């Protein structure tokens, strides 16, 4: 019996959960394909992926933070602040790579502030990032005076609007980021630390896990990914608006939860979160194709989240 058991790869439980999320996505895809012929076409699937890419980018960071036992409500405003600063730099003639780095650094810095207040300040993540939600939005609005920044350089926009092998640039960028995040979470000490710190912070500390650094990294990664998401978006829009990123945090939390992340910390999966994002994207896309009113789309999203949680409860409760 021991031989057979030991051959099972590590973390099999999480993978089992991912398979469940995937089944959910497949079911949704089957239903929409049956209802409208325009759903299951290459172009539409690329559409869905492109539309999900930005929320996926945010959700990856959110998943890491949630696994570490925290929450990051400030992602939308962090994105807005990074985007407006980055865009202003580009418009002012700063070379594109430098401006991109500047924007990402802004996001990481915001994440550092969140993390510092939570770890060294000993404040609750919900409250700190709720404060950040207003704070970073205010900074973006004050900096821009409320107006969008237009006139982004073409070479920057090419990144978001180009395609590689038929796949839109944003999809590829986010897929790469997801791959990196997946490796970090499942293959590196940091990933193990995130799970440990989220699962039981005191036990992790006793076991010698650098708890403070681990939490800080989670928030900094989340901030950095928010900045990257914002860069992808402004590349597509051609403008950076201080009001961008409204309610992104809720979409990201929803995707993480659908994907199996526990808001209590210690559990979550990058693959699951990605599928969660695509589920939400496919739902919106399919219902639009069917010409269903936005209110029902909201209804469907709510039902999906709750059903996912109920299935979770039923399968893990044993």
């Amino acid at each position, binding site marked *: 019996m021991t031989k057979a058991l030991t051959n099972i790869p590590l973390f099999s439980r999480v993978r089992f959960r991912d398979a469940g999320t995937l089944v959910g996505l497949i079911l949704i895809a089957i239903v929409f394909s049956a209802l409208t012929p325009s759903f299951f076409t290459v172009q539409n699937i690329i559409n869905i992926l492109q539309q999900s890419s930005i929320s996926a980018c945010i959700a990856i960071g959110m998943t890491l933070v949630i696994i570490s036992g925290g929450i990051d409500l400030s992602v939308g405003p962090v994105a807005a602040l990074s985007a407006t600063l980055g865009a202003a730099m580009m418009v002012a003639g700063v070379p594109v790579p430098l401006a991109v780095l500047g924007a990402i650094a802004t996001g990481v810095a915001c994440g550092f502030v969140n993390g510092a207040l939570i770890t060294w300040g000993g404040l609750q993540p919900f409250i700190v990032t709720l404060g950040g939600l207003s704070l970073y939005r205010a900074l973006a609005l004050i900096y821009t005076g409320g107006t969008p920044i237009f006139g982004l350089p073409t070479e920057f926009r090419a990144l978001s609007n180009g395609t590689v092998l038929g796949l839109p640039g944003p999809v590829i960028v986010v897929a790469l980021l997801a791959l990196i995040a997946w490796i970090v979470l499942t293959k590196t000490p940091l990933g193990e630390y995130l799970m440990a710190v989220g699962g039981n912070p005191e036990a992790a500390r006793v076991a010698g896990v650098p708890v403070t650094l681990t939490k800080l990294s989670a928030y900094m990664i989340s901030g950095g990914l928010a900045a990257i998401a914002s860069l992808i978006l402004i590349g597509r829009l051609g403008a950076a608006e201080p009001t961008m990123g409204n309610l992104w945090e809720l979409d990201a939390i929803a995707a993480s939860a659908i994907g199996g992340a526990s808001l209590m910390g210690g559990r979550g999966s990058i693959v699951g979160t990605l599928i969660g994002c695509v589920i939400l994207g496919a739902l919106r896309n399919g219902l639009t*194709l069917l010409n269903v009113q936005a*209110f029902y789309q909201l209804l469907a999203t709510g039902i999906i989240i709750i059903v996912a949680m109920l299935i979770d409860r039923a399968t893990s409760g044993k």
Partner: protein
Amino acid sequence: MQHLLNTALASGALIFTIGAACAQDLTPLNSDSEPDRIDWSQLDATFGDLATPAQGTKVGGVSKTLTNEYWRTLGEGYKTFADAQSVGVVYQAASNEGDQLGQLSIAETLISQGFDALLFSPQTDANLIPALEKAAAAGVPVVNVNDAVIPTARHYVGNVQKDNGVRVAQWFIDNHPQGGKVAVIEGQAGVYAAGQRTAGFTQTITENGNFDIVASVPANWSRELAFNAAATILQQHPDLIGFYANNDGMALGVVEAVKSAGKQQQTAVFGTDGISDAYAAVRAGDLTGTVDSFPLLTGEVAMEVALRLIAGQELPRVVATPQALITKDTIDSYTTTDMDALRAVLTAQ
């Protein structure tokens, strides 16, 4: 803040857009001042009657949100006009006014469905730009309908936002020749319509010289925020003679504040948009007036413009839609379900 906003709105957007990356031959659109324009009432006279659209023509509409009566009525306008021409319509909206990416997803999904023309009412000036570009690439004409303005839009149908404020300012100048203190309740900071409406009111009333704008604060289109702001302003300036709110929802919030301060006789309240609640409030004497931009009619005009574009007509870039100041004195002439009669009244004003 006020100064910053105005400067930014008047010039900032323009300056920023000078180097517009899209390298289009179009100048960034300012729907209020674009010289290439025509009034809605001149369409028939200039371009002849609308030709009957081809069988199976369909037009897609994407608007902000259906929680707002304005956008629901606009959609009805699309549908009334399209039905009369036997044209198919799909009308979709995001779940709330803040959902920028959601609206973009909807717009992109519609493009892939092969519509002959699209009518966009974007959440912000920028959030539907990718959809606009995608439609352009697919050769589908897009009409930007009220009130956020996509700088690269080739066709725009909507009212002159600035004129909303101008009309209200004019009422104060006519009815309070001695002048007095007035206040403005603004919409969401950074939104084109809000900025233009405020600017129209502020500039007109300042030029007169007798009025004093004691406050101009944003209430983000929220009735509750408007109520709170108005209550504070009234407390500070008990001799205030009037409010101008950037939309009706906020104006109705202001009305409540004025009522609870017991200043209905002294303080006039104006809104913008002409929603049904506003009409009722004007009749009841609570709301002094509103600038109606006739969403049903606007919807019809927008649909007409779309159909003319499908038919291959070259139209001016901006088609201005009607608006009128509704007060207790004028309300009856605008309260009609007969669109032809309404068109006649508006053309005559």
